[in-house]
């Protein structure tokens, strides 16, 4: 995930460049979105949308910003999806328990322990969830987490700390 995409340049074939970036990083970003969402289909959609957004803004971006831009877009997309899911679930709890269904499906695939951790992770506030995933799944340095989340490095540290505490409480509470 640390590799950078080809440098956008005036006159470059944006479609080819974005496609190349997609081929190099799509699976990694889908995995990131799956960790966030627990839903492969939604994860693929989020990544597709992120690359479409990158394509639209291609000539806006410096070469070394392309991957960062699309990763931030994936985070934003996951955030929107999770909020929409929560809203849907609240409004149609009886008929479409989407989160519960996704969690059940995932539990089968990855086991109860992991499903419990991921379930608790997804109950955290957006910023806390993203900080933990970027830190402990992608192993990004603080500076890169800060850039991806649009926050300061100091905030990354404090957010991560609070997120760990909150996650611990959630997991304790679920026992």
């Amino acid at each position, binding site marked *: 995930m640390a590799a950078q995409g080809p440098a956008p340049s005036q006159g470059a074939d944006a479609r080819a460049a974005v496609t190349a970036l997609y081929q190099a990083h799509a699976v990694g970003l889908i995995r990131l979105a799956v*960790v966030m969402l627990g839903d492969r289909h939604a994860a693929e959609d989020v990544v597709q949308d992120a690359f479409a957004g990158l394509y639209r*803004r291609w000539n806006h971006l410096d070469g070394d910003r392309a991957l960062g831009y699309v990763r931030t877009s994936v985070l934003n997309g996951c955030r929107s999806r999770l909020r929409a899911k929560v809203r849907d679930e609240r409004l149609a709890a009886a008929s479409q328990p989407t989160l519960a269904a996704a969690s059940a499906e995932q539990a089968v695939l990855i086991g109860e322990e992991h499903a419990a951790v991921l379930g608790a992770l997804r109950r955290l506030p957006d910023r806390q969830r993203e900080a933990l995933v970027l830190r*402990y*799944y992608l192993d990004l340095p603080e500076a890169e987490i800060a850039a991806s989340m649009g926050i300061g490095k100091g905030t990354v540290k404090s957010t991560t700390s609070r997120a760990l505490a909150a996650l611990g409480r959630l997991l304790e509470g679920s026992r």
Partner: protein
Amino acid sequence: MNTLEDRIRAAARAAAGTVADGSAPPLRLPQRGRVPRWPAWGERKSMIVPLAAAAAVIAVVAGLILAVGRTTPGGTIPGVGPPLAAPLPLTADGLPAYFLEYPIAYQQGGAQPGTANEGSPPIPSRFRSQETLRIVATATGEVAATATMPGYVTAIAASRGAFFAAVVRDSLARFYEIRMTSSRTGTAVTELPIPPDTAPVESMAASPNGARLAYSTVVMHSASGDVQNLVIASTTEDSEHEWTTPASYSTGSMGPMNFLADGRTLAFSWTGPSETSPSSALRLLDTAAPGSDLMAGRAVLRFANEPGMVEGYTLSPNGRVAVGVASGRPYQTVVDSMVVSSAGNPSRKVLYRPSEIGADPVNSCNTPPLWISNTGSQVLIECYATASPDVRIVLINHGHVTQLPWLDATANEVTAFPGITAIGVPANADG
């Protein structure tokens, strides 16, 4: 071992492990459309389909665009007043009877008729000495008149009575008015007294009476950030005012724009670092107020609204209603009606929600709509036919969809409808 951090790592990796190497689906990029990307000087502007692959919800925001412009004491606003050209007629259905069309097909298919011999390679647009715009009759889809422009076209617009084009010739953007003759079979093309601009024109809009033309230039990259200029010029005299991006907004850019009915307030789309950024919104700028801060106005409608991301709106000719297309997965989305105060908070309702399958003739729509009525109850829009890659022009009338097959040839073109903002002209492959 088995600290909380380790548990997070293990769980995340287990979830990620469900995605096999090489299992990413093919990338679907937009094919064409109306959201600009950023060309180099000398290249044609580029417009990309924003939501070609996305499902869509049409949302109406009513009561949003209040006339924030007020007449300057003792002054006159050139955008207000009787039209400089007689308003173009309407069809029996109330749609504008004519619209201006920039034929992308010429671009993609090669040179325009008359500019190259058959079989010769396409002429890159930036080397073209002329391009032809078409004025199409809405009721029949027939080309009523054409206008040959002395250079290559980068943006088009329409007032209620005339059309406008930004044309690059000798590396300068020049501005032209196109009026239909009284017989509606010909055109008169006049260069406007607007100083030629050395910067490429991104998008353009005309005031309802045609007395003012607003245009944005492409984003210029500088050491202190990106800069984009907005110019509003009189179409009758050498008079213009320029706004520019403040440093604090240097990572954003303007999108399509149009004047409200007062001819003074300019509405434009602003996209910040991303579509979900708080600053990404439809904004209003009082163009009669002093200053040159492009962001001096106010945001009235964020893109990141529910029920989905709305990347662009079309404003009604009276500026009171905005219609956009919300992307995402509307089939799974519970659509809320947002009712908010008049301080920039719109009431919102879904006009139409395409079905992915079934008897519905369309399954997704492009944004922004081509034209909407003053109430937003009528929307002319490009949509994708169910189980077909073809783009159709449809009229959504009080939620009911009617296909207008005679306009299908327009589905891949750039259009400017009287009273509606015009957008840029798409890139050609040779750019």
